[in-house]
């Protein structure tokens, strides 16, 4: 069976989820590798969610929110913006490859942009191959 990356996408309700919806209603084709989870704001995406997704077997995690300045809650996406470089720093310390986690801003009118981002990310994660995190954690319980 060929490897298909599993990507968890956390999308803010107001811009990015609507953008993904637009990609659908416009019948824009994009890879089915992304599993979308709708959250109210990109600031709601606790770094714990990203790490939990990776620990449970996601090969990649995509975080999308409104463009800077456009947040429905005015400042939420700035909080997400500030957290992201530190999250990447932390994941690097854990040995997680850079391309596995990505943050992008997608507005409600950017269906094509969303499809392009998912397409690009799927290929990057595919090139990295399956994430070893989940299998390593399971193996640690069997052999010490």
């Amino acid at each position, binding site marked *: 069976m060929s490897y298909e990356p599993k990507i968890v996408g956390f999308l803010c309700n107001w811009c990015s989820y609507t953008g993904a919806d637009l990609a659908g209603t416009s019948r824009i084709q994009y890879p089915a590798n992304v599993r979308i989870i709708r959250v109210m704001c990109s*600031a709601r995406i*606790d*770094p*714990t969610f*990203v*790490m*939990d997704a*990776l*620990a449970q077997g996601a090969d990649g995690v995509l975080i999308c929110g409104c463009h*800077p300045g456009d947040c429905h809650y005015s400042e939420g996406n*700035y*909080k997400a*913006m*500030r*957290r992201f*470089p*530190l*999250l990447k*720093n*932390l994941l690097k*310390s*854990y*040995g*997680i490859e850079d391309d596995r986690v990505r943050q992008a801003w997608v507005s409600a009118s950017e269906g094509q942009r969303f499809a392009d981002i998912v397409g690009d990310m799927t290929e990057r994660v595919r090139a990295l191959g399956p*994430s*070893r*995190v989940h299998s*390593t*954690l399971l193996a*640690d*319980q069997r052999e*010490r």
Partner: protein
Amino acid sequence: MTEKKKLQIALYWGAACGGCDVAVLDTNEFILDIAAAADIRLWPIAVDGKYKDVEALEDGELDLTLFDGAVRNSENEHIAKLLRRKSKVMVAFGSCAHMGGIPGLANLTTREEILTTAYLTNASIEPGNRTVPCTETQVDGLKLTIPSFYKRAYRLSDIVDVDYFVPGCPPAPDQVKNVVLAVVKGALPPRKSVIGASERAVCDDCKRTKQEKKTKHFLRPYEIIQDPERCLMEQGILCLGSATRSGCGVRCPDSNQGCRGCYGPAPGVADQGAKFLSALASIIDSKDPAEIEGILSRLPDFVGYAYRFGLPASKLQRSHRS
């Protein structure tokens, strides 16, 4: 002649520094009450008592085991399983048993790198030394064995079923007292609880004044004359208080040091370091990605700070570098 049966207890150290054992002694004269009310069947740091004595016990004969230290080698695991079988109540005592502790930071590297550094390449190693411990060695036709060193550190609960968790590096002496008294009185909370701590975050108990948090600089404590009344995070000094369980008496922030997080995740927090990341990054006073990167570059070892006492308890547990 109905003499009340004495409490049967054991204390053990896995991959530990001994600080938790000292914390038990730090209960001062209360330790004499423990000695009077209990038979200490095993306590390698302070009392004579051999593994074979423990092996000879009936299953469940011990009322209480306080296990401190992480599980890093086969001896730690063997004794953890043995004491689990012999004990009615198994307590993960202190940060290392609770969350992996300082030895857990070694999960960011590999067994091979640790052995190479410790036995071959360290500056203090005698030049030309090639001696690295092996689990089995042949000497004069005899096989000598030592415990095998595991590829990573584990929490006690990764290895055996743990009844209660007592956090702290080390647990505060008053809390040690409370735990022992709770066992004596049979007044224990539901199994799997964190005991000897509180249900609040350190910030809730911290006396410093908290206002709006915004900062453009993260500072090391020596880089600033700090205001002793004001929240450390507002002054740019890292403090894990927001993500950490209280019960320690807020000793570090009260001594002008940021909280190090030894009491583990605050109630409701699944991953202490991730939660701290969230809080810390949110207070950066900038909307410019390049400036944000610059401010964050002042944190040279974020993983080591965020998970100082709990890397094996984090979602990702260890390095996944290939």
